[in-house]
Structures are given as C-alpha cells and as structure tokens.
C-alpha cells in the first residue's frame, strides 16, 4: 500500500531535489508558507534553483533563508519588496526575477496544473509585461498570451490533512497553496494537523489527495506576522 506520510521534511524531500530544478513554494508574504519544507530545501544545499513564489520571504524567514545560502538563481514572483538581502542580490546581478502580476501568476499556476499551456489575459496589455508576448484581439479588446507554469516540485502548507493527502487550508493562508499543489511533478505538503482518512469532511476538502504525493505532520509552524496591526478596545 502506498504510504504518503513521511516522518519529517528532509526525509519527505529525499530524492526529489537537484541543482537547477524548478520549485514552487506556497504562501503570500509569510502567511501559509511551507516553513519546514523550505528549511529542508535550504539545508539540502541544492543550488541555482528557479523558485516560483508570490514573494521572497523576509530577511532570515521563509524563502529569505534560501537567499542567505545563495541557492536561488531566479524568482518568478509578483512582489519581492520586503527583503533587503533580495534587493542586494538582485542589484548585484546574482539573482534574476521574472516579475509576474499576481493574478497572472495565480492563473499561470492554475493553468499549468490543469494541463493548459497558455491563456490570454487583459492584465499587462500596453505594459512591459506584454513585451515579447503575443497580443491578440478578442471581442474588440486586447489580450496578452501568458504561459502555464509547471514545476519539478511544489511545497505547500495546509492546516489539516489526512494520510491520503486530502488538504484543508485555514483563512488567508490558503492563497497560492491549492494551485501549486496541482502544478508540479511531485507535491509535498506540510500540515499542522494530520488525521486518518474519514476524519475530514469530504465536502470541506480543498485539495483532493490525488494532487499530493508526500505529506508531513508539522504541528509547530512559527506563523510570523509581517505587519501587526491592532485597534484600541472601546472603553
């Protein structure tokens, strides 16, 4: 019987990592990032990675860890502004960036996972994003062709999962995780709660287990907050 459950992040990534591979990493900012799996990729020492992720973490946290170890050759992202080390490596020419509008990035991943090699979108028409890409008119409006994305490995974070790989995400920690789970040759998930089949309500499952190849139980995610904003209690 196939066993998708691995004891820890390093073991779950065993045999999957190699230099110059393409990696998708879920999360928006530091919300819903696969922290344990990122740390395991970093400690594996693989180099020259192309990393598809909306952001690049912050200094020392999330993908910021892999910047310190200089393992990333290229990022495909919509926004990388929160990371000083990233800025330095970018300006020094040590790291390349393919800036992709956030919605286009989400749809490129969704399309890649759904077997759709390309699609047309209004986003970016008339901007540098459309340079070198096919622009076509549909119903009187201009659209630019964008390619689907598919990675060698996707690493995602979910709230609950079962041993079959069925996943449920929590609040805005869902973000890019469900699409990324579909868009890689091998998907590895870390979950805060790991349960037996039958314990999750099938109606609530967001990522069906077919998309998840390996899973680890990671109950102690650090869950950093980038911008802690609060309001005063009424007296």
């Amino acid at each position, binding site marked *: 019987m196939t066993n998708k459950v691995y004891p820890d992040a390093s073991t779950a990534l065993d045999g999957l990592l190699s230099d110059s591979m393409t990696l998708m990493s879920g999360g*928006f*900012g*530091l*919300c*819903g990032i696969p922290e344990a799996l990122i740390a395991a990729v970093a400690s594996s020492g693989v180099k020259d990675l192309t990393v598809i992720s*909306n952001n690049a973490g912050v200094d020392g946290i999330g993908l910021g860890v892999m910047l310190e170890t200089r393992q990333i050759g290229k990022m495909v*992202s*919509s*926004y*990388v*502004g*929160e990371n000083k080390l990233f*800025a330095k490596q*970018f*300006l020094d020419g040590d790291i390349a*960036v393919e*800036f992709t*509008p*956030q*919605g*286009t*990035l*989400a*749809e490129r*991943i*969704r399309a890649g996972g759904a077997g759709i090699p390309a699609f047309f*979108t*209004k*986003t*970016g*028409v*008339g*901007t*540098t*994003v459309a340079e070198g890409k096919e622009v076509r008119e549909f119903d009187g409006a201009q659209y630019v062709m964008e390619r689907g994305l598919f990675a060698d490995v996707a690493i995602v974070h979910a*709230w609950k999962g079962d041993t079959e790989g069925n996943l449920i*995400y*929590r*609040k*805005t*920690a*869902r*973000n*890019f*995780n*469900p*699409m990324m789970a579909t868009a890689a040759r091998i998907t590895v998930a870390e979950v805060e709660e790991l349960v037996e089949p039958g314990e999750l309500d099938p109606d609530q499952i*967001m990522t069906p287990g077919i998309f998840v190849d390996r899973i680890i139980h990671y109950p102690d995610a650090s*869950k*950093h*907050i*980038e*911008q*802690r*904003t*609060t*309001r005063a*209690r009424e007296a």
Partner: protein
Amino acid sequence: MAWTRDQMAARAAMELHDGFYVNLGIGIPTLVSNYIPEGMSVQLQSENGMLGMGPFPYEGEEDADLINAGKQTVTELPTTSFFSSADSFAMIRGGHINLSILGAMQIAENGDLANWMIPGKMVKGMGGAMDLVAGVKRVVVVMEHTAKGKPKLLKKCTLPLTGAQVVDLVITDLGVFEIDKAGSGGMTLVELAEGATLDQIAENTEATYSVAPGL
C-alpha cells in the same frame, strides 16, 4: 488650501454604492473604509484571498493566518469568505469587483496609470495592481496632486505603465478629474477641493484637461 488625506478618502467614499464589492489599495485608499456611509453594505475584497474584510483585531487577538493584501492583521465579519489566489483574481479579472481605489505615481490624460516601478531604483514588483486596473469595472485613483512640486497628472506617463487607458476618476488634494478612458473625451476637472483655485490646478497640472461648466 487643499484637501487632507482624510478629506480625499471621504471624497473617494462618495464613489461607493450599496451592494458594491470594492478593492482598496495601500495608503490613502485604505482610509476610505472609515467613510463608508452608515447603513450602506459594501464588501471589501483583499486580493490575497478574502471578501468581507473586517477591521484590525484587538491587541492579543491577531491571527497570522488572517491578513490583508498589505500583510496587515485583520478580522472576519459575518459576511466573510476565504478563497485561493486564483479565485480572487477571477473576481478581479472577470469584472466581478465594482470598484478599485488605488494610489498612483503618474496619470496620463488618456487614463494611463504608472505606480509600480521607477527605473534605476530597486523594483519591488507590481503585486496585484496590474490585474486590478485591467479587470475592475471602475478604477479610481487617490493621490497627491504633485510629487516634490512636480505634476503627476501628465500628457504622457514617463514611468513604466501599470495599465494603459484604465483610470476613470482621479481624486487629488486639489480636485477631482474624470477621464474618458474608452473614448476621446479626455480629462475633465469636475470638482475643486475646498480652498483650491482653478489657477492653482493649472499651475500644477501638465495634462490637458477641460473644466466642467459651473466651476
């Protein structure tokens, strides 16, 4: 004399209608949520994957899994739903969001908008801005009229564009301009801010604009 940031936000709130789904950008646009009229139902969309965004949490009740597109901690409302980034941008790109209110570095008289990069400086990325201006039905920009004394309303943007012919309305500290983005009507000054004069606007605007009757 001119409008304050809060007065600009209050003016932008006049663009809201009952039942609207609205996306607010970072900065002055965020303040618009303080001016939603009592009794009006407006659902705020946050492009990281939330519809029905509530206020900041009380201290001690922050949830790292519950943030807005500015990565700030927020709260749920009874109307809230969560969804993936793909669904979020289906709402945006698919024209389901009624109104996007955002900031800008430059606006051209044909409705071109630039707000994501300055050549020669560290580029942070466009985030969801290009999707919002391309996909949302009505795009309202709230910004200072000038930057370091230089006009931001131009004949043509000099910075790389976020979107071409996308802006419907511009609210600055000096006044309000309509833009006929789809047609050839150009830019029209439709309101003066409290204390602002036509001369003051003329001096601080490079774009060609007409002045609405009665101003």
